């Protein structure tokens, strides 16, 4: 297990190095002068020169990379070309909103997947199974930005129950925070819910065929207790890891949902950075997303290896 963990860690570090080369390259690959592109031709020469020096663009490229990665390792991603604020502080401001949205979305996904997947596994080839299969196919295919607009149309426009967009900090007003979170969380959670429904279905089906379930039934245990204590307990353990992977997708995949709901998270920060050609901010956001993604995958793989020793044996061969 330790050898596997170390190997997996080494792999992640190597990938992270490759990721940082690519993220660094964003600024180099922009045609022309990136600071000129961001500030426009009429920029104040002093601001221009200050930003150029701060970004180290006059140094040789390898030196720029070493400086950049050294700074990034201690959380210094430079300053925004637009506002002059540090990229780290801009990112830190946006983290709570993105965490709330991804967390809300995974709750929605599990609320859809566990009941629907279980019901569908308990009634194979019956109408509820067809319904689950159809709705998970639909959930995977529906464009989240369209679903968001439709939810706004119905729940904010026609019914007027919920706000159509915006964000309120949890510390400011918990009730309004929750009200603002509902529509974006549903929008972002549906596709993960669809994936998890399929997973729960196959996991419960597999669990139903196990010997200990048959034994429990043969002992005369009530059907409900068999389901709770023998089937779901075993079927839902692996769900933790799959839900973890989905959470990593959600943290980085809610970019467009944030755009639809004017949700001030990291995704929106990345968009604004693209629009205003604020490359240091874009680099910081992209690197952060990639690191989150790598970390969650690493943790999930290690957790899986711990739950299922066969994985370590297989990879050690």
């Amino acid at each position, binding site marked *: 297990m330790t050898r596997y963990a170390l190997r997996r860690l080494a792999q992640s570090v190597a990938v992270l190095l490759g990721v940082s080369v690519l993220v660094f390259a964003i600024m180099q690959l922009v045609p022309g002068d990136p600071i000129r592109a961001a500030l426009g031709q009429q920029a104040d020469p002093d601001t221009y020169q200050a930003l150029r020096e701060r970004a180290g663009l006059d140094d040789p490229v390898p030196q720029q990379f070493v400086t950049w990665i050294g700074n990034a390792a201690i959380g210094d991603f430079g300053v925004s070309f637009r506002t002059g604020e540090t990229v780290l502080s801009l990112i830190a401001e946006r983290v709570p909103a993105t965490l709330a949205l991804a967390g809300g979305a995974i709750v929605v996904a599990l609320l859809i997947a566990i009941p629907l997947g279980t019901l569908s596994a308990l009634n194979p080839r019956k109408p509820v199974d067809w319904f689950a299969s159809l709705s998970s196919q639909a959930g995977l*295919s529906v464009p989240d930005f*369209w679903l968001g607009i439709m939810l706004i149309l119905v729940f904010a426009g026609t019914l007027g129950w919920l706000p159509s967009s915006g964000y309120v900090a949890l510390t400011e007003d918990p009730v309004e925070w929750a009200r603002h979170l509902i529509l974006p969380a549903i929008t972002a959670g549906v596709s993960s819910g669809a994936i998890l429904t399929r997973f729960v279905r196959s996991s419960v089906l597999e669990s139903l065929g196990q010997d200990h379930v048959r034994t429990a039934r043969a002992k005369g245990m009530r059907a409900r207790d068999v389901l709770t204590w023998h089937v779901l307990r075993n079927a839902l353990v692996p769900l933790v890891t799959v839900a973890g992977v989905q959470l990593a997708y959600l943290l980085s*995949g809610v970019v467009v949902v944030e755009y639809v709901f004017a949700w001030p998270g990291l995704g929106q920060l990345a968009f604004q950075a693209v629009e205003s050609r604020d490359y240091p901010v874009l680099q910081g956001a992209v690197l952060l997303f990639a690191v989150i993604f790598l970390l969650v995958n690493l943790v999930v793989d290690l957790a899986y290896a711990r739950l299922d020793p066969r994985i370590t044996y297989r990879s050690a061969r």
Partner: protein
Amino acid sequence: MRAAETIKLLFRGPTAIVAAIVLAGLVLTAFLGEQLAPHSATETDVSNRLQSPSADHWFGTDELGRDVLSRVILGAEVSLRVGAVAVGISLVAGVLIGLFAGYYGRWVDDVLMRLSDVLFAFPAMLMAIAVLAILGPGSANAMIAIGIVYTPIFARITRASVLSVREEVYVRAARSAGAGDLRIIGRHVLPNVTAPIIVQTSISLAFAILSEAALSFVGLGTQPPDPSWGRMLAEGRGFVEQAWWMAVFPGLAIFVTVLAFNVLGDALRDVLDPRQRQAMAGTGVSA
């Protein structure tokens, strides 16, 4: 498996038949768009703006008085073209990478697969946005961006299949008969790894169309005045309370198209690659 047998198995259920009919209709619409559209897609008529659906304008009109139905019809061509070219890019690049990595193994495999791991570490949408931040917005650049994003998945799937085919008797026989590597890869390996690639192509088309719509929705993909479904949705979003039809119909078009490709992809997987379906069910991976 013979082609006729595959097709027979593929269409034994009604869902795959419906999906195939929908897709055939879409392709036809894409080719005959100009002839099918009842009005011009770009001609504005301000006196007729924001008209609700009627006999003259089945899907209503937008904020500039343009016919929404005609724009949805002409948008089919844009969506399918961008999706097809993007998947074409990732198919060619990914399959080549996977073939060489799987066939040669050792350092070739290590280098190519670590590179694909690096690309894989970026969330798809963000990667596409970063590429477009460098290349600039537009449908041609969106194709390249989406193509890059989906390359690693094709590389991985191809490599995994090549690894199992590489040691087959017929490959060893060809090698001992003196066939060169390129000949073995082209004549013996590639034809035996196509099943999972075909399945992935159908599923990737669904996601590529979805990505193009998302990029156009945020203003980085297809640019006005070209009618793109994502772009139309973005325009409709601002008028959703006065003119629901502006957002509902383009969104439905994306939904139906993506659903059809996904359903067909699932049916193909059942027929061509049942093992992959089991593996996918275990990981929750969909794309």
